[in-house]
Structures are given as structure tokens and as C-alpha cells.
């Protein structure tokens, strides 16, 4: 199967909207406002933190707020020196676990000047928790059914267990399985 046709290609997976588990978007929004737009989205890798942050950013923009992104990862582990903080902007900071204690302390002090700060991080403690992201085999099944009509090769339960709940990795495996479909003649 060509990459452009693979139902699990990155543009489609990244286009999936975050699914709140056990509460509504309105409840989540009210909590975000109550926390003054200074809070953390907490969860392990592949649990949807970045997706939720992106969806919140889109909604903030639709409401006329200005957002600015800071994306940290293993290749970018520091806040750029020229990263400024404007009272009119809400900072969306993804991957804050990349900052050690000192860098975090310096960052959050400077971020007091911003209109808001919403971070993603693996563990609680740095800012009040907006939401703790969790995953489940049912959630994986729901997301997969949005991407394909047929039954994937592996069951959602098996895939979920294999990747310890990391939905990004589970989707990655489904990508590779579908990429091989025509080659090895699997059919459904």
C-alpha cells in the first residue's frame, strides 16, 4: 500500500480530535477558565496530551485569543533565548518534561508576564492539573474505526497491551501493517 493511501499516515492520525473521557468539552473549558489559563495537561507518552493542547489552541484562537507555541523535545530541550512573554498571549508549551528543575523555575517566572500558560507534561506538580490524559483499548478501537472501515489485523486489546497504552505507537504499528498488506496478500 502506498504511503499516500495508508489510512494511518501521519496527517490522518494527527487530524483526530481529542476525546474527553468521562466529561464534556464544556466542563473542560470551564475548568480551564477557572484555572486562569495556567495549568497542566498530564499523561504518559502517546496519551493525547499534544492533541488536546492543539485542540484547545484552536478553540482559543476561534474565540479571538492570541496563542503562541513552544514545542520542546529531545532535540530542543531549552527555551529559546529570544522567546518573549506578552500579556496578550497565552503560551502553549508542549513537552515541558524536557526542562530540568532550574530551567523550569526560570521559565515559569518569566511566563508570569504572559496572559496564560498551558503545558503538557508527564507527571503532576509543576502547575495545577487541567486534565490527566488516559487511554484504553476502547479509545483505541474508537480512533481506529474513524480511520478505517475494515477490521485491523490485530485486535485493539492486543495492540493496546503490546504498546502499554501508547496510542501513538499503536497507530505506528497499524501504519506498518497496512503498508505491507498488498505485499504479503492479507485480506479481510
Amino acid at each position, binding site marked *: *500500500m*502506498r*504511503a*499516500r493511501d*495508508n489510512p*494511518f*499516515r*501521519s*496527517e490522518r492520525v494527527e487530524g483526530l480530535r481529542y476525546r474527553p473521557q468521562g466529561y464534556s468539552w464544556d466542563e473542560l473549558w470551564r475548568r480551564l477558565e477557572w484555572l486562569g489559563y495556567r495549568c497542566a495537561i498530564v499523561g504518559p507518552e502517546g496519551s493525547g496530551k499534544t492533541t488536546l493542547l492543539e485542540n484547545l489552541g484552536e478553540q482559543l484562537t476561534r474565540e479571538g485569543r492570541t496563542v503562541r507555541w513552544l514545542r520542546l523535545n529531545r532535540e530542543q530541550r531549552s527555551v529559546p533565548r529570544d522567546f518573549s512573554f506578552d500579556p496578550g498571549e497565552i503560551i502553549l508549551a508542549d513537552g515541558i518534561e524536557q526542562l530540568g528543575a532550574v530551567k523550569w523555575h526560570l521559565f515559569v517566572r518569566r511566563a508570569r508576564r504572559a496572559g496564560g500558560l498551558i503545558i503538557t507534561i508527564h507527571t503532576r506538580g509543576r502547575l495545577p492539573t487541567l486534565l490527566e490524559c488516559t487511554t484504553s483499548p476502547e479509545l483505541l478501537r474508537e480512533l481506529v474505526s474513524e480511520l478505517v472501515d475494515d477490521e485491523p489485523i490485530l485486535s485493539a486489546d492486543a495492540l493496546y497491551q503490546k504498546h502499554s497504552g501508547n496510542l501513538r505507537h499503536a497507530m*505506528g504499528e497499524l*501504519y*506498518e501493517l497496512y*503498508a*505491507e498488506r498488498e505485499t504479503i496478500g492479507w485480506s479481510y
Partner: protein
Amino acid sequence: MSTLSIATLDNRTTFMPGEELIGVAGWQLAEKPKCVELRLFWFTRGKGSEDSGVVATQTFEDAQAEEGRQFQFRLPESPYSFSGKLISLVWALELIVKPGNAVERLEITVAPEAREVLLK
């Protein structure tokens, strides 16, 4: 509501590198736009992060709310449209109207013999 369209000469969507790409971009908008432009670009699709490159842009000056304008691009010699299991490279024309989010895209193939290169 906005309506955008991109039509190539003879409705072709497959081309060889270096060919002329000619067509008409059309739009019907509620009001006169600030800016209308047509981009020729390529992007990748597949497992990893997407990459893209804008090769040429044609801006339609003093665009009215409703009209069609001819466009012309000389397609570059590379990169070729290709598809493998992990990544595909896709060429496209994209018509963008500002202000607003109105966008129309037409995917095309640019490769030797006007056929997408298939990687094993």
C-alpha cells in the same frame, strides 16, 4: 459561502518535469477579497512528519469577488512525484483567499512519463 476552483488545460493532472502547467483559477466570494494567490508546491505523506516546499506562487492582483484568472507555471525538473510504503511525495496546486480560510487544492503528478515513481 465561498466557491473556489482550479482547472488545468484539458483537465490534465499528470505532467512531465519541465512542462508548462496552464489553467484557470476561479472563485465566487461574498465580497471582494484582500488577496488571492495560487501556489505550486509539493508535500510528503506517510508515517513521519510532513515536509513541504512551495516552488512558485502566482498572486492575482486586484481580485474581484467573482472571477476566473489564467495561471501559468513552468514545472521544475525535480522532485518527482513518488510513492513508497513509508513516504509519498505529492505535488499540488493550492488556491488561497484572504481574509478567511477558503482553500482549494488540486493534486497533480510530476514525474518522467507523467507517471508517479513507485518505490519498492
